[in-house]
């Protein structure tokens, strides 16, 4: 695997973009998507390193991450719907009950 660094750099860039998205966007669904993006960046790292090291564990891990992501998507989106039902908005700036 001569191109390992390429994959890792792409993964890092994607992760950074995801982070920026989480930090800058207000729309909860977009934030959610950015989180998915970050997870995928990590998945890419796992698989490329798994391939490089010649060991399957990393890929197994990715499967678990995907499962978690799926579960997270289900619960997170349900949360958003519930929140939207209450506040007529999914703007995270409206989520401020945990203040003080």
């Amino acid at each position, binding site marked *: 695997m001569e191109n390992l*660094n390429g994959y890792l750099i792409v993964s890092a860039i994607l992760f950074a973009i995801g982070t920026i998205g989480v*930090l800058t966007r207000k729309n909860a*669904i977009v934030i959610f*998507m950015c989180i998915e*993006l970050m997870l995928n960046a990590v998945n890419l790292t796992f698989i*490329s390193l798994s391939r490089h*090291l010649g060991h399957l564990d990393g890929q197994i891990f990715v499967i678990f991450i995907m499962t978690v992501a799926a579960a997270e998507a289900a*619960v997170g989106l349900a949360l*958003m719907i519930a929140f939207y039902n209450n506040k007529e908005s999914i703007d995270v700036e409206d989520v401020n009950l945990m203040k003080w």
Partner: protein
Amino acid sequence: METLFFVIISLVAIISAILVITCKNPINSALSLIMTFFCLATYYVMLDAPFMAAIQVMVYAGAIMVLIVFTIMLLNIRVNATQKHSHKVLLGSILGIFILINTVVLLFKSQVSNPVGGLTGDLIKNLGHSELIGREMFTTFLLPFEITSILLLVAIIGSVILAKKKI
């Protein structure tokens, strides 16, 4: 050839990722994200992991993104024209870039070890990726696998309870 392909895919992936975070309309973001996911699936194929690529397309691009798009449409969110906190964008970007710098520096400073497992491209070609994954999954990782099902069950119940107005 392969390098060129890699660069093209990478550019597409990064640009669509940037689109994810810049598009005003969430639908556009979602479509860009799907694009990114497809790029990642391509990477997986290039990394001799066709099974992962298939799952990537099915689970992420297929299931999760469909769920997200449905949600967006269901909620019918008005697009907010103005981004009030420009300093937020600035600070967030700076931090993101710092993360990137950190990671890249880490990447170059550290030494990746030599292969430890016996997994080679030939082996994958001979046996098939799915079989390898399946064998590993149902032997060594059987217990986590089963626990995952519980996690999914919990998620199902949780989302039903959360989303329903009255139970």
